[in-house]
């Protein structure tokens, strides 16, 4: 019952926003395509979502899949580097004192700043995009993992000590399971960031994907497709966050 009511309320909210969009597009900003125009000009992409008509002319879900694949690789790179780094910093006060300021400085740097550096370093757009996604999205993983390691109850560590667990068993039997919920919170935030970065990465590298498509259509002055991309990015991001949320609750319940 409550679920239905909430769903109805979200529909009302969405309708109001679309209404506002329609209003703005017919009054203040004539360049902004109206919702109807957006639909008629984009429906090929939506109704044949997996079609491939050309390099930069593909169904929207096909584009999204390219982007997702790229994000997945960057995200994987981020957590493969970020998780051990978090454990290291969480375990050593010395290291964390050394690197905390560096992390605080690196964290707010925009993907638009990293990308050119990536292009210089790798001379190719694909690795540069991955480099950017990983560098921008790994910080929540590092910070949450570190926090998780630091919040392990002393009791558990004492158990590991009096049972004389080897460093490896101490890690797999105590540290890792105790930190897992924190790690997952980090992963969820990191994935959100990775998705946020994808557009910037694809725009500047001109690779196929929602971001690349968005940039191409901007250059071809087909504004309705920009809106299509924006909506797709939002919906996919929302779905990703929900999926990670479900995984996270599963994990906490287990």
């Amino acid at each position, binding site marked *: 019952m409550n679920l239905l009511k909430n769903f109805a309320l979200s529909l009302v909210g969405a309708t109001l926003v679309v209404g506002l969009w329609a209003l703005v597009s017919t009054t203040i900003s004539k360049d902004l395509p109206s919702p109807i125009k957006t639909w008629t000009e984009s429906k090929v992409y939506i109704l044949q979502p997996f079609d491939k008509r050309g390099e930069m002319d593909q169904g929207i879900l096909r584009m999204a899949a390219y982007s997702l694949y790229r994000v997945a690789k960057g995200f994987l790179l981020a957590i493969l580097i970020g998780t051990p780094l978090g454990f290291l910093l969480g375990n050593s006060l010395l290291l964390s004192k050394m690197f905390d300021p560096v992390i605080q400085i690196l964290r707010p740097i925009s993907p638009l700043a990293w990308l050119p550096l990536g292009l210089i370093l790798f001379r190719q757009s694909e690795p540069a995009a991955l480099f950017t996604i990983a560098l921008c999205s790994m910080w929540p993983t590092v910070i949450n993992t570190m926090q998780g390691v630091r919040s392990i109850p002393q*009791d*558990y560590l*004492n*158990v590991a000590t009096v*049972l*004389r667990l080897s460093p490896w068993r101490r890690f797999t039997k105590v540290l890792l399971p*105790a930190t897992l919920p924190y790690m997952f919170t980090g992963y969820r935030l990191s994935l959100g960031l990775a998705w946020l970065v994808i557009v910037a990465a694809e725009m500047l590298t001109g690779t196929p994907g929602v971001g690349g498509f968005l940039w191409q259509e901007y250059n071809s002055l087909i504004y309705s497709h920009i809106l299509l991309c924006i909506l797709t990015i939002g919906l996919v991001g929302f779905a990703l966050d929900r999926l990670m949320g479900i995984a996270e609750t599963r994990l906490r319940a287990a």
Partner: protein
Amino acid sequence: MTMTTQRPLEITSLTKVFPTPSGPHVAVKDFRALIQPGEFVSLLGHSGCGKSTVLAIVAGLSSASEGGVIVDGKEIEGPGLERALVFQTPSLLPWMTALDNVLLAVSQAHPALGHREQKAMASKYLDMVGLTEYANQRPTELSQGTQQRVAIARAFSLEPRFLLLDEPFGALDSITRRELQDLLLDLWEQDRKTVLMVTHDVDEALYLSDRIILMTDGPESRVGLELEITLPRPRSAEGSLDHPDYFRLRREVLQFLEHHSKQFSSGGHAGHSNKKSSAVVV
């Protein structure tokens, strides 16, 4: 178990200094004790006097500032599986079942056994504390008392020679506490491990121990009084509580806790001797 060849556990003029923002804090100073093989000794004193500090050092979780702990003629260097520790909170790993918590200990103490034998052994110890049907439950699904049973099973599954307990029943309601005290007595009667138990419950100490070591209040806390508990064994709630010695001993402990602890910590140990009782002035 060959008790006869074992040597006592010795705590030699142990001192522990904690660095604090307001300077070094001498929690325990010159604490000495000798615990005979098979003896059940309680460490009793007011809250904050340094009982846990002493026990943690014996367990090897913390190191002494001066003095040390001698086991089998050698000074200990950190924890050892021959010394099992039961904490005040059950301290079970919540992501493992009751059985797996015990199994972790078994696999540490008996690495040479196959997985199946280790599992059988862990089950055996869970059975011993009456938790056969709780084997596959997670600690969060168990009551505090049941969790502490698992913790006791875990400690015994190490087949240790020394059992160290830090207020193991302090967080339990009185009925559960009594049950677990009887369980501990039962298990102890089976092979009479050497036990050092910290408690601030006078009746618990009297009921379980062969000897009570009373600590003076901190800082610089030390041994204030040692009492042999001469109540006959095996003990039971009815029999032991009605024993005439029980009230005499209880009064002596309470008197110490009420009147002497402060005096002992500042004025040394002179002058206290009670010929009627088995009190030993240290």
